[in-house]
């Protein structure tokens, strides 16, 4: 089926708000290239569970496309229109299964050496849509905080190596009550700017005490969900599901209630997010460090919060082959604090990179702190780059300096 043949009735199975959005823009959708429409529908079909920032982005994207003259739109989407889509893909039920179409399209593009053309078209499109986006001022500059190294004594690992040239390395940070001080700072920002999903606390273990106004996601609190998910994956594999792609599709279609999560809005939106972290992120089900890094990435990308605090905890140790032979596969996990520190250090760098991809990056600030220790690094327009400070400072004062 071609986009020109789209009819409102075909969106019958979409959730209510998604259906409304698709039907309202059907005239636009009918004019878009076949390789592009399903990718847009993949976003529209989950509209009911999107965060406010995502909704706004999608609304603006549709509005922008709608305001373009046909020839302008053709220029903008020429890269997508030039892709050769196979008849099998055209016959795909891409209206109701845009996610599955996306997987098949990716495989087709790689196999037909069109992936570079697609990548170019996508980059060009995103750049132009971003450029057209109104530059709304943020209520307060973004602040990202990452806490690494829980449970580590001394280490010989050189921390923050990828970020030192971006900010100031503080070698005499007062670690007393550090996590509580940081949580207080985040909670204060949430109280001053009470916007839904604008202030996040992500924990790789069990979260510290609950704070008003924070969107909290933790590896520990999702233990039963992770277990249910792993169980479903095991069963699917044992039943001969047919390989990683089929498994991925099965995971993408899981609902929160199938994994023991329930709740109406706004909890439903957050539950969908939690499930997506576990079903779309490789390793998030098994390694807490990966869980924290991926959750922070997705929170920045999707919810675009003003504040994000991510705290790493020790992940389970990857057991070497000889241990697997000796102990079989059913042993209790053992923590690996040293390896987790290395993971978290890289994860902190990625958290900063993802923060920098958001609007207002030039005003935003970032802090990473080695939990229980005197090492920290801050990046902020208020601070010089590539320098060090040996002055005594506590975390509250440090936050004050960069915000």
């Amino acid at each position, binding site marked *: 089926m071609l986009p020109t043949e789209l009819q409102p009735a075909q969106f019958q199975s979409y959730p209510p708000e998604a259906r409304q959005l698709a039907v309202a823009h059907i005239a636009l959708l009918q004019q878009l290239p076949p390789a592009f429409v399903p990718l847009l529908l993949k976003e529209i079909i989950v509209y009911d569970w999107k965060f406010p920032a995502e909704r706004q982005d999608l609304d603006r994207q549709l509005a922008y496309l709608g305001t373009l003259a046909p020839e302008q739109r053709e220029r903008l989407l020429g890269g997508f229109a030039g892709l050769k889509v196979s008849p099998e893909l055209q016959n795909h039920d891409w209206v109701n299964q845009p996610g599955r179409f996306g997987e098949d399209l990716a495989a087709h593009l790689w196999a037909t050496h069109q992936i570079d053309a697609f990548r170019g078209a996508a980059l060009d499109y995103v750049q132009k849509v971003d450029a057209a986006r109104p530059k709304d001022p943020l209520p307060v500059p973004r602040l990202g905080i990452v806490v690494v190294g829980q449970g580590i004594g001394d280490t010989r690992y050189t921390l923050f190596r990828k970020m030192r040239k971006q900010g100031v390395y503080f070698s005499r940070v007062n670690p007393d009550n550090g996590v509580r001080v940081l949580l207080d700072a985040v909670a204060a920002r949430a109280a001053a700017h009470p916007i839904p999903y604008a202030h996040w606390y992500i924990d790789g273990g069990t979260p510290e005490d609950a704070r008003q106004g924070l969107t909290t996601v933790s590896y520990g609190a999702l233990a039963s969900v992770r277990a249910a998910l792993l169980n479903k994956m095991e069963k699917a594999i044992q039943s001969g599901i047919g*390989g990683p792609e089929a498994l991925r599709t099965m995971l993408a279609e899981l609902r929160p209630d199938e994994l023991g999560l329930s709740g109406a809005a706004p909890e439903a939106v957050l539950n969908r997010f939690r499930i997506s972290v576990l079903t779309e992120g490789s390793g998030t089900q098994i390694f807490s460090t990966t869980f924290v890094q991926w959750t922070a990435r997705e929170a920045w990308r999707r919810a675009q919060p003003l504040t994000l605090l991510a705290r790493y905890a020790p992940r389970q140790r990857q057991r070497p082959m*000889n241990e697997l032979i*000796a102990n079989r596969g059913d042993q209790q996990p053992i923590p690996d604090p040293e390896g987790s520190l290395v993971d978290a250090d890289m994860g902190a760098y990625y958290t900063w990179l993802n923060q920098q991809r958001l609007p207002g990056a030039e005003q935003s600030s970032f802090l990473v702190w080695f939990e229980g220790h005197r090492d920290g690094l801050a990046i902020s327009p208020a601070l010089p780059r590539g320098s060090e400070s040996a002055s005594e400072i506590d975390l509250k004062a440090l936050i004050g300096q960069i915000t």
Partner: protein
Amino acid sequence: MLTKRGAATPRELAQAISWERRDFLRTVTGAGAAAALFGLGPVPALASAGVRKVVVVTFGGGARDEETFMPEGQENIPHLLGELIPQATFFTQVVNRGILGHYVATASLATGVYETFNNFAAVAPENPTVFEYFRKDLKRPATDAWVVAPSNGFNRIGESGHRSYGAGLGAGVILPKRLLTAALSSGGQVEYQHLLRDNYETPLYTPELSGSEFELRQLGEILKLSVADFTAHARSLASPDELSVYVAHQLMRQFAPSLLWITLHDIDIAHSGTYSLYIDGIQRSDRLSAEIWKTIQSEPEYAGKTAMFILPDFGRDSDTDSGGNGFQHHRTGDPLSRTTWMMVMGPGIRQNVVVDRPVESTDLVPTLGALLGFSPRLSSGKALAEVT
């Protein structure tokens, strides 16, 4: 703002990588002679004169520049830098323009054609493999070409489905983890399926398995190892790649194959998102590559007449590409994930030389053909004049 690479074109990026590598190699390896040799043409009949056997090691699955040859990655590859590069001709820019999935990319390396089959399907390559060209043209027996690969998905890589080649002309394929599982399970009811989990993109995925009779026969008849000896040795090893190198050594002793292909795979743990384990994998591959070269030097059937090629199948996504998640995957197809390196060493191969021009990963098979004397007629690559 993120890096200077953000604004560059793919070609500029690739060029920048190459320049940085070259500058780095000059400094670290003291490859002073390299500058004088850049741009030199081939030296006919010099390189291939003494090469009668070839060992190919794929530094898999997927290592980036940042963690290998870039300055910040040098601490992870002390053996490549300190021991091997001074003996090697080093290609700084090996571009893979095909599908960046480990099986299909390794199959493309082995056929010299960018294969397009489903990476996760247990299918044979469509185009003839290097093993078939080698055996058919040179009339070599089945025992003269072997593949050792830890990943279960690689079981069809030894032989293509091409009508002029294919059945009976390929390499023997040994999957050491399957051997191990078969050996461990042969004594009783204990299940060791968890050992076979090697698809890190989907951590719990285990490819379908057939019976274990074939593996047990391989163990006894080919490797001349008892189940007890094999499992005892495996119990001393930390990773599947170490087991692969052990099996490769056994093959070298038993058959001294002229064409041996070893696919390392530990690095692919990166898909789990754990940076420290990814680095561990690189460090292990570095150490194992040096061990393989030492074995070549110490085995009489190989010493002085064997060329070794080491190359990653491809890279991984760059940190700055918003479509990916940095080192974790290789899904964006960005220039960093497509651009890797290759080192070649052996009799007649120039030592301590850096080749800076871009080459393609499909050039490997024609290069092997030029060295060993067979004609890879359906390969799309070109023999690398610098080492043939």
